[in-house]
């Protein structure tokens, strides 16, 4: 069953593609289907060497000495680099995207298991790995901070003693909302519900791990870096600033990327090491991490310990919400989000409801774990925000003995309230929330499901129905408020229409599977009437695309999509002047229809965009002030974020004997405004829903008392397969963003943000007859069983 309707028919191109929005096969598929993609590890340059990283087996240990002599003596080894080598170059430490520092290679001590200690460069990847075994590091293990809740204890070891004057593991305190107003609302409330809610550490785990090939040309001094980055332009600037390399001589190429999900936003030591390796050896150097390195050292996600409280009247009108967060950032604060918001956009936790008061404070701490935190399709921590509000609303429903759907409907924002300023300062652009929720309930057959549940409970069977209603703010962002490391989050876009009417559009964003080569061609097609197959999308190469901040936080369509629409409109405006010259009339006398300017009142007289393109490059005499050729460029600075939303309903069956959860159905109704290519949008939603099932039921990076990472391979870090995922049922409503040129809101992360709460709410609903009101993710059979027994354990640590 599906409630997705195809977009209204648009003219089809000779190739059968919509000249504008609609379903069409992806242009990028032709190479992937033939095994002809071009991923970083596919690169094989003449003379290329291979790098491998030696990593710390300890979570916290002092380094007494590193002996690399045996490794250097191994035939085929070209160089071994240590922290000491880098310190001599001033490169032992690098800045993170949060104005902290991170060791490229450890010098003084190691601070998490898997931290980078040495780098071997050899003739083959096998020899490089062999050499790692020959490096002798003398460590003195130190006490470990494995539990964020103990990070600020008086006797906790100080992890960041590299920072002058640092005497504890505190990173920052940050707050949003009105504390006094919120406390007053709580004091006056009939009902207050409080719950400790953990969003445990998980990992984006894209199928392609991180890696790079660096080539510093010793003659020209030009550095070319092929790398798994979601933000090639930002990386180029950071490399220029960190390494003192001239920015005009750095070319960052992000070729085909095997999934990103935020894992490929930060700059990792391995990338820097491949550059240093190329400088040292004068040869191209490839570094590709293995799966354990990816899971143990690169950007994790979440790790938020949240205490949430909700206040309401006795009939279920929400009055206020507050959340205290303890944020585990690992050993280096390496999160990637707009500078002004150290906790990302977490303060959107007020959700989709109408109430006057809210407050949160976030305390961030260092622990002996890998750095990261903002990743895994999180929309800058809106995953945590959406989860906590949707979980605590369900706890309130349980307390009030109200149906969770009814409680939500009673509190959802109303269409006439938009634009709506939330108690923590966000300005939601548009929405008709109740409509979306009704569509989801209709698709699910909500009333029938509740009847079925009651019948089953009477028979001792435990099914659960979970609802989640989420609102995201995506498309970072307005330059005034949002920058990363001082780089404003506006995106450039260039469009050139060639003489024959075929076009190239150059984007600053980069696809990791989102289908930009198709979607952006459709945006330009929609604006200019050029068939999408005649439009080439160029991206992922800093020498050949305009500056912009990259693809993450669901920002490609809200920011670069707007840029693409506007640059096409700029070309259309110029085309009008050229058409007027060709038709010997005034520009004002011309009217636009898709692909053509024509004379008002005389539609037979007109010039197609293809004819205009040739005119623009030909001998036609152009009016004063009109340059030849048909191209334009823009920089789009979004006036606000866009606010997609959705209602998700999950149906599960739980075996109380084993704690096994089976996701039987999942209904997802998203409103992301108009859908440029509905097929691609649905695909993105499907993927995010699988993430949600994975995080809710399976995925976890836990640690033991020694700081050992217990999720360091796919044997231990469990990802959902085709067996855990149901046949997703999608629906949609369409509420355009009023400030976006084509009304589109962004959708890439919606499902990852919205779905975990629906799954958890369904499981808790199923086992609520056992008196369970909350249990933490992942709801593995063991954890569900323990919750049913009334003896839940912390999921994030494994202690004996």
């Amino acid at each position: 069953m599906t409630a997705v309707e195809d977009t209204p028919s648009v003219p089809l191109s000779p190739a059968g593609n919509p000249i504008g929005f609609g379903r069409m096969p992806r242009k990028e598929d032709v190479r992937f289907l033939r095994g002809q993609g071009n991923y970083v590890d596919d690169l094989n340059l003449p003379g290329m060497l291979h790098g491998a990283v030696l990593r710390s087996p300890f979570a916290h240990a002092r380094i007494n000495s590193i002996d690399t002599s045996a490794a250097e003596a191994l035939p085929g080894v070209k160089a071994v680099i240590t922290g000491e080598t880098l310190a001599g170059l001033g490169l032992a430490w690098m800045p993170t995207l949060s104005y902290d520092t991170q060791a490229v290679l450890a010098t003084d001590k190691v601070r998490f298991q898997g931290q980078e200690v040495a780098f071997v460069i050899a003739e083959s990847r096998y020899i490089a790995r062999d050499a790692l075994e020959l490096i002798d590091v003398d460590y003195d293990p130190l006490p470990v901070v494995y539990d964020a809740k103990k990070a600020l204890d008086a006797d906790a070891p100080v992890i960041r003693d590299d920072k002058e004057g640092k005497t504890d593991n505190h990173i920052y305190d940050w707050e949003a909302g009105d504390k006094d107003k919120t406390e007053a609302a709580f004091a006056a409330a009939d009902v207050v519900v409080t719950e400790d809610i953990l969003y445990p550490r998980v990992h984006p785990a894209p199928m392609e791990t991180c890696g790079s090939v660096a080539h510093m040309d010793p003659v020209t001094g030009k550095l070319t870096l092929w790398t798994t980055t979601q933000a090639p332009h930002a990386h180029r600037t950071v490399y220029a600033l960190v390494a003192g390399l001239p920015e005009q001589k750095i070319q960052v190429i992000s070729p085909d990327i095997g999934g990103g999900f935020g894992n490929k936003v930060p700059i990792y030591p391995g990338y820097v090491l491949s550059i240093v390796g190329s400088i040292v050896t004068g040869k191209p150097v490839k570094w590709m991490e293995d799966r354990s390195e990816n899971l143990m050292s690169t950007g994790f996600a979440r790790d938020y310990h949240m205490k949430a409280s909700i206040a309401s009247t006795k009939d279920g009108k929400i009055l206020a919400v507050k959340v205290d967060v303890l944020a585990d950032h690992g050993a280096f604060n390496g999160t990637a989000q707009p500078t002004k918001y150290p906790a990302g956009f977490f303060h959107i936790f007020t959700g989709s409801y109408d109430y006057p008061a809210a407050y949160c404070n976030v305390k961030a701490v260092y622990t002996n774990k890998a750095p990261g935190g903002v990743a895994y399709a999180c929309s800058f921590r809106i995953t945590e925000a959406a989860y906590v509000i949707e979980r605590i609303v369900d706890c309130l429903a349980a307390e009030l003995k109200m149906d969770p759907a009814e409680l939500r409907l009673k509190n959802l924002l109303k269409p006439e309230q938009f634009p709506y300023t939330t108690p923590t300062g966000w300005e939601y652009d548009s929405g008709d929330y109740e409509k979306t929720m009704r569509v989801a309930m209709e698709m699910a057959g909500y009333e029938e499901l509740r009847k079925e549940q009651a019948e089953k409970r009477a028979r001792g069977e435990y099914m659960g129905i979970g609802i989640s209603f989420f609102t995201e703010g995506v498309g970072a962002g307005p330059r005034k408020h949002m920058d990363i490391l001082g780089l404003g989050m506006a995106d450039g876009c260039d469009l050139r229409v060639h003489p024959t009417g075929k076009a190239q559009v150059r984007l600053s964003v980069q696809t990791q599977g989102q289908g930009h080569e198709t979607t952006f061609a459709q945006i330009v097609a929609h604006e200019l009437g050029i068939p999408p197959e005649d439009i080439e999308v160029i991206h992922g190469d800093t020498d050949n695309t305009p500056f912009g901040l990259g693809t993450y936080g669901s920002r490609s369509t809200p920011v670069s999509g707007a840029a693409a629409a506007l640059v096409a409109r700029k070309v259309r405006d110029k085309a009008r002047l050229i058409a007027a010259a060709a038709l010997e009339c005034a520009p004002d006398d011309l009217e636009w229809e898709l692909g053509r300017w024509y004379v008002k009142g005389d539609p037979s007289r007109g010039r197609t965009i293809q004819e205009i393109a040739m005119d623009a490059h030909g001998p036609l005499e152009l009016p004063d002030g009109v340059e030849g050729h048909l191209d334009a460029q823009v920089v789009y600075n979004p006036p606000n974020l866009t606010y997609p939303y959705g209602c998700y309903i999950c149906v599960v069956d739980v075996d109380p004997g084993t704690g096994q959860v089976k996701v039987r159905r999942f209904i997802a109704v998203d409103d992301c405004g108009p859908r440029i290519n509905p097929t691609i949008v649905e695909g993105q939603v499907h993927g995010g829903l699988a993430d949600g099932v994975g995080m809710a039921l399976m995925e976890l990076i836990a640690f033991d008392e020694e700081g050992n990472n217990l999720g360091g391979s796919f044997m231990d870090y469990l990802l959902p397969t085709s067996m855990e995922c149901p046949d997703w049922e999608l629906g949609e409503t369409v509420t355009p963003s009023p400030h976006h040129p084509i009304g589109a809101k962004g959708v890439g992360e919606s499902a990852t943000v919205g779905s975990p709460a629906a799954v958890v709410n369904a499981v808790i609903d199923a086992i609520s007859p056992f008196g369970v009101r909350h249990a933490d993710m992942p709801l593995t059979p063991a954890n569900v069983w323990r919750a049913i027994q009334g003896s839940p354990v912390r999921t994030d640590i494994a202690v004996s």
Partner: protein
Amino acid sequence: MQVTVTVNGQEVTRDVEPRTLLVHFIRDDLLMRGTHWGCDTSNCGACTVWVDDEPVKSCTYLAVQADGKSITTVEGLEKNGELDPIQKGFMECHGLQCGYCTPGMMMVGRALLDKNPHPSEAEIREGISGNICRCTGYKNIVASIQWAAEHPVSTEASEVTA
């Protein structure tokens, strides 16, 4: 040591270290980059190829084990310039996004259809359960394999390519 294999119908002989994994042999020695590597532990299936028509995870299979055998990779699916139905299915049904798991998925999907030309949805889901995709949530992969089942190569075409 010397290894002789028939890869996508062509016999090749190479000297390899005994420890060389089949996935590295295919990618680094034969320079066929369509087969991907994803996990080292046989969990993800990005490296799936066929050895004598059976799907094998080439990250945990030595190149020397394939000596004298026939290997088929994603590059071998297309015949005489015509995409295999499984490839067409993935395109028609948007069965791929980043493309990284896709070669492995198509190799298990094709192998499934060769044994069971009309699998049920449950059989398809079980058939691809050894392969992980992080982008698609599997729904469209299942649909892609169903599409391929419904659009098999015609007998005539099979004879031409045989």
